[in-house]
């Protein structure tokens, strides 16, 4: 083998989805830029059919050309579990999950999305004049659920009387439906919106049009959301990847599970440079982000009290 480190990854949606898949693509691109000739990657996007991902990963694994095969999506877990057992000499990574199946050649990674969710939620409650906030979620699982739960908890920690509506539209990709879900929130008085997954491009447009605030997660949506965007929780998978590469160089093929956190720098809260907030408010936002980040890292903040398990009551 040569000195080039080769990575192959499958992801469910487009590499430029402003959300989950893009977060991994950006990380790989970043490493590629940094490491130059010593790093190469193959990226198969749009593989929402799990079986297609299985074919791809099997192909990569059996070719023996790749140092690391990534299944970027929790739906790929079963595939990774099976393949890793069959190809013990190849290293696999998958997420978001923390399960390595007890296999020595599997890394798992996930994001503590509730951390950024909490910060976004707290800011949302702070900036909402109506005390009415809308959340458009995909399906109630994975990092989307963690983000939403953290968001609700954060909002209620600032304003216990706030109305935080959560609507899981049962789809990651249905933009029209997500849009109307957002419209429904606005119609019911929400002046802050957030959401997760690639269909949020719809809600973002709704936020912009109705001049209400938008909080994002997974990737930066600052450009798209323009003046309505406030803060974004950005996943920095390069943090995990660096660790994995280091392990591999030491000959460790897996067995480790990683979590992106504010603490390890895998989660970043980006404050939009386009946000239309006035300077004092912006300063307030910056300060809040700083204190909350510190608090969360220090473990002083209870992110997910049990009470947020249930959907909060309507504002009655």
């Amino acid at each position: 083998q040569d000195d080039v480190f080769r990575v192959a990854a499958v992801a469910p949606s487009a590499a430029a989805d402003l959300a989950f898949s893009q977060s991994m693509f950006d990380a790989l691109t970043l490493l590629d830029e940094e490491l130059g000739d010593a790093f190469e990657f193959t990226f198969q996007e749009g593989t929402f059919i799990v079986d297609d991902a299985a074919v791809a990963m099997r192909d990569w694994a059996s070719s023996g050309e790749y140092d690391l095969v990534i299944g970027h999506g929790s739906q790929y877990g079963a595939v990774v579990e099976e393949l890793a057992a069959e190809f013990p000499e190849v290293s696999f990574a998958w997420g978001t999950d923390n399960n390595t199946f007890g296999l020595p050649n599997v890394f798992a990674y996930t994001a503590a999305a509730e951390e950024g969710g909490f910060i976004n939620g707290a800011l949302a409650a702070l900036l909402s004049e109506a005390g009415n906030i809308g959340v458009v979620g995909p399906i109630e699982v994975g990092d989307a659920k963690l983000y939403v739960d953290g968001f609700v908890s954060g909002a209620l920690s600032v304003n216990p009387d706030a109305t935080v509506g959560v609507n899981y539209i049962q789809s990651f990709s249905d933009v029209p439906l997500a849009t109307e879900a957002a419209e429904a929130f606005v119609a019911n008085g929400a002046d802050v919106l957030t959401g997760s997954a690639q269909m949020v491009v719809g809600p973002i447009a709704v936020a912009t049009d109705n001049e209400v605030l938008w909080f994002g997660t997974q990737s930066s949506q600052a450009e798209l959301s323009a003046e309505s965007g406030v803060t974004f929780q950005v996943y920095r998978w390069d943090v995990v990847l660096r660790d994995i590469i280091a392990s591999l160089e030491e000959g460790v093929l897996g067995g480790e599970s990683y979590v992106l956190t504010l603490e390890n720098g895998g989660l970043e809260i980006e404050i939009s440079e386009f946000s239309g907030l006035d300077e004092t408010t912006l300063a307030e936002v910056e300060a809040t982000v700083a204190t909350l980040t510190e608090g969360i890292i220090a473990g002083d903040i209870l992110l997910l009290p049990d009470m947020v398990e249930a959907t909060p009551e309507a504002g009655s």
Partner: protein
Amino acid sequence: MNIFETIGSIVTASVFASTLRLATPYLFAAIGETFAQRSGLLNLGVDGIMLMGAFTGFYAVYATGSLLLGVLTALVVGGLMGLAIAFISVTLRAKQGISGIGLYLFGLGLSELLFQRLIGTPKSIERFPDIYIPVLSDIEFLGIGQIFFRQNLLVYIAFASVPIAAYVLRRTSYGLKIRAVGQNPAAADAMDVNVARIRYSTQIFGGMMAGLAGASLSVALLGVFQQNLTGGLGFIAVALVYFGRWRPVGVMIGALLFSFVNALQLQVGALGFDVPPEFSTMAPYVITIIALAFAGRQTEKPTALTVPFQRGE
């Protein structure tokens, strides 16, 4: 909160307004498809045309900033795709269901490819503004102003197209020819109606309407484009043609019913009622089926639907 207040808080004017918006793309696509089916052509590729219309319309606006140009582009692209599928179905007499699926895949792929190459990442554009119709839009009574008179231009056009379509089908000689060609092309042919020309025309029109349906999403309602933006909406539109029993007004009722239940379930979600989201999401589909099961049976199904015509031999 008593039951009436609860219902009142759910079924608000904004739900109805949202219903009209949601129904708009279905209406465009389904009215166009109604014409095609009435003349005997089934196009299962509506969704593919919608996607191409949505993307090209979006791109035109993105590149030029002109909404009108966006709509025109979508119309032209939709019409061209309609022409293509007409050629395949009418001239080459290919199996219609399958060629439609081919067209769908083509549109799905190409719209995404173009999006990746020309734009890359989701961008937003200035979308069609809501037009407040003077006086009428101020009607407070039952929220009528908000529901009916504060929508964007394409919503108005979509609903206006319903009576026009019904009139054309029922009262003009063109409509008569369409109905005849879909019922008994041999008879129409013997009576000097150019079956192929009629079918080409309805399919091109169907394509244009599907393109417009796509643009109504990307340019008017959402102001963004994303891969597979329609998410299979075109297939529902085809289903609505059956629901409406090949009549524009029936199609509109179907589109409104489906969209209303959808808007309602979103509203229920927004208000945070404790309904499993899976069940509220399936509601529009369940209700559409039930409604049809209890609807009247009289039907004007074009008997020559999907049957290619060949004179005599």
